[in-house]
């Protein structure tokens, strides 16, 4: 219980820090928008093509955005020298990860909620009646991205070339998330929507597996 209450306090701190400056969110939203516009040059965004390729492009835009957005998670603590203070403040370092994962998932979801209608309008893809399941897919996908991304951001923050390193470490590990969420999203955005439960199951499995791995090994990532 101490873990959860610690994590909740830290989550409040993460969210407060972000909403005071809103640097991260505004930059990420604009980045996704730019990527979507750039993508529109690569294929004819007529309805049938959009339905087939659109979801994949959308997810790629989100993954690229995430790989940039997750950088400051630990860099910010490092440049302000607050990581040791955080470690002393909580009994279980996993709380730090939980808070950061929560905050990053929240920021990603806000970005996705803002960009989903824009994507639907620009690429002429109706979001349809399957919206709740679509939101579930985006939640599970973003959660998985944040879990792995937060862990790897802790690694890349301690290395050289960190800006380049994080996407490099993150994207190969996230291939299952990209594959599964694209499959599910294509199914849900089709003219006759189908629900690919297997894909949703795989996203859930990915989240559980990596959250467990982080719970087991997370503390070593924060060693001084």
């Amino acid at each position, binding site marked *: 219980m101490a873990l959860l209450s610690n994590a909740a306090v830290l989550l409040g701190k993460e969210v407060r820090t972000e909403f005071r400056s809103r640097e991260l969110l505004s930059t990420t939203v604009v980045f996704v928008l730019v990527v979507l516009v750039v993508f529109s040059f690569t294929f004819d965004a007529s309805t049938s093509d959009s339905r087939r390729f659109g979801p994949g492009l959308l997810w790629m835009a989100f993954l690229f955005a995430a790989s940039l957005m997750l950088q400051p998670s630990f860099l910010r603590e490092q440049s302000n020298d607050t990581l040791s203070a955080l470690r002393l403040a909580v009994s279980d370092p996993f709380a730090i990860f939980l808070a950061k994962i929560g905050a990053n998932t929240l920021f990603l979801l806000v970005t996705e909620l803002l960009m989903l209608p824009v994507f639907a309008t620009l690429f002429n893809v109706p979001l349809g009646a399957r919206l709740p399941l679509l939101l579930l897919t985006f939640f599970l996908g973003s959660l998985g991205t944040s879990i792995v991304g937060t862990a790897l951001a802790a690694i890349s923050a301690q290395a050289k070339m960190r800006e380049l390193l994080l996407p490099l470490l993150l994207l*190969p590990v996230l291939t299952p998330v990209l594959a599964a969420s694209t499959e599910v999203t294509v199914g849900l955005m089709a003219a006759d929507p189908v629900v690919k439960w297997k894909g949703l199951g795989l996203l859930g499995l990915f989240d559980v597996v990596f959250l467990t791995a982080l719970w087991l*090994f997370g503390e070593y*990532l924060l060693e001084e």
Partner: protein
Amino acid sequence: MGKRALLGAAAVALLVAAAYAAFFVAPTERTMGDLQRIFYFHASCAWAGLDAFAVCFIANLLYVWKRQGRYDWLGVSAAEVGLAFTTVVLITGPIWAKPAWGIYWTWDARLTSTFVLWLLYVCYLLLRTLVDESGRRALLSALFGIFAFIDVPIVFGAIRWWRTQHPAPVIMGGANSGLDPVMRKVFFFSVLATHVFMAFLIAERYALEKIRGEVEELREEAEAA
């Protein structure tokens, strides 16, 4: 002769024997002809590569637990050797695929997941070059190695739904699969040969990494003094 030289001699002898068996002992396959013979090499290298990555994973776990340099040395050695074998798989695959399928590469499940596996370990080695301090490098790369290896079965599972063009598992596959008894013996013999070769390469690379690690330790001590 040292132990490693003996292992090396055994590996070379076994590889030569396996090559002889693949070309002259194994019967010619009915539809693919001689082309199929690359499979003895291709599939056994894939097997050896995966096992090398498993060794790397175990070494990574042991490093996080025990914090002894030797597990770090074993981890990087096994990762490099696994990467070498996986590279062979990715090269021999297209050599076979061009005449058999008419194309060098297709984004099929097993090809794609092998490629992702290869990328994961390239990133593992890349990460090691980007952390200067030896203890930190060992710990961070061990943790990334653990995450990467956990990811492997999920990658294979996720990409499996895509239509697969790769031959279905013949060894330990379903009820109707199975190899000709001679082919089977030749195949398992080449699996043995590649594994001995893999063990030899890891042992050699480990010896090198051990020296490198000890020099690095001494240098760090000298700098601190």
